[in-house]
């Protein structure tokens, strides 16, 4: 499990206040372990880490493919 500290947003809503940690949208699932003031500690479960790594791998593959396409015409010129 990966843990990290993130800022907290307090959102007024219909007489209530929602305390919501501001987490990078690339994190698909997380648990909130603790909130202290304007900071929260979150935990990212392993299955979510796997999904993030797969997404990162796909992005890297796409980037490599784009770079290869850009390099090829120059190499064959």
């Amino acid at each position, binding site marked *: *499990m990966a843990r990290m500290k993130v800022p907290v947003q307090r*959102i007024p*809503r219909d*007489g*209530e*206040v*929602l*305390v*919501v*940690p501001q*987490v990078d*949208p690339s*994190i*698909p*699932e*997380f*648990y*909130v*372990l603790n*909130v202290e003031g304007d900071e929260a500690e979150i935990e990212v*479960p*392993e299955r*979510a880490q796997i999904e993030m790594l797969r997404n990162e791998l796909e992005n890297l593959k796409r980037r490599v493919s784009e770079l290869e396409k850009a390099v090829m015409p120059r190499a064959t010129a």
Partner: protein
Amino acid sequence: MPVRLMPATIIDREHIPLWSAKPVDFAVSSTNESGGMWRFVVENGVYNLDPTKADSYGKTNFINPSRTYPFDGNLATAGSEVYTNSTSWVDADAGVDMSTPNRYLILLKVGVSTTSGSACNIGLFGSEDMVTWTLLWSASSSSLATYYALIKPVRCRAVKVMFANSRGGSYYSSCSTYELSLYKV
């Protein structure tokens, strides 16, 4: 009365401090269901919990009292989905007020779906006073998904499921809570 968590396959692991009076940390490697019971793995010990033995079993759903399925002790039942195109958190279909703050182990099974091109943000919020609601768990899905979540013992009086769509407008997210179980620890 506080529940005692009995390991399913390892009977000498009763000292795992899930029900300790003071907060302790432990690693949860998986949460799902088996034979109508919650099933989760904590530090290589497999635990089963009966949803009908939850302290929240049979309680009123304060989000919508006619929706009884989140507290019926049956992990297979879900009602009609609720929808939103709001990009802000809104109440979903399940919430329970335990009347007094205590430490609870919480288990949740919820299904979500969303319009293609958007994501459904689903979250479980807890409160000690029914005014300030703190996010305890959240997930984001861009497709049909069923989530199982285990919230380590946390002090609260009430919990509720909320959700939002990532884009809004003509994009909608839906969700339906199968079960929400609170066990006093």
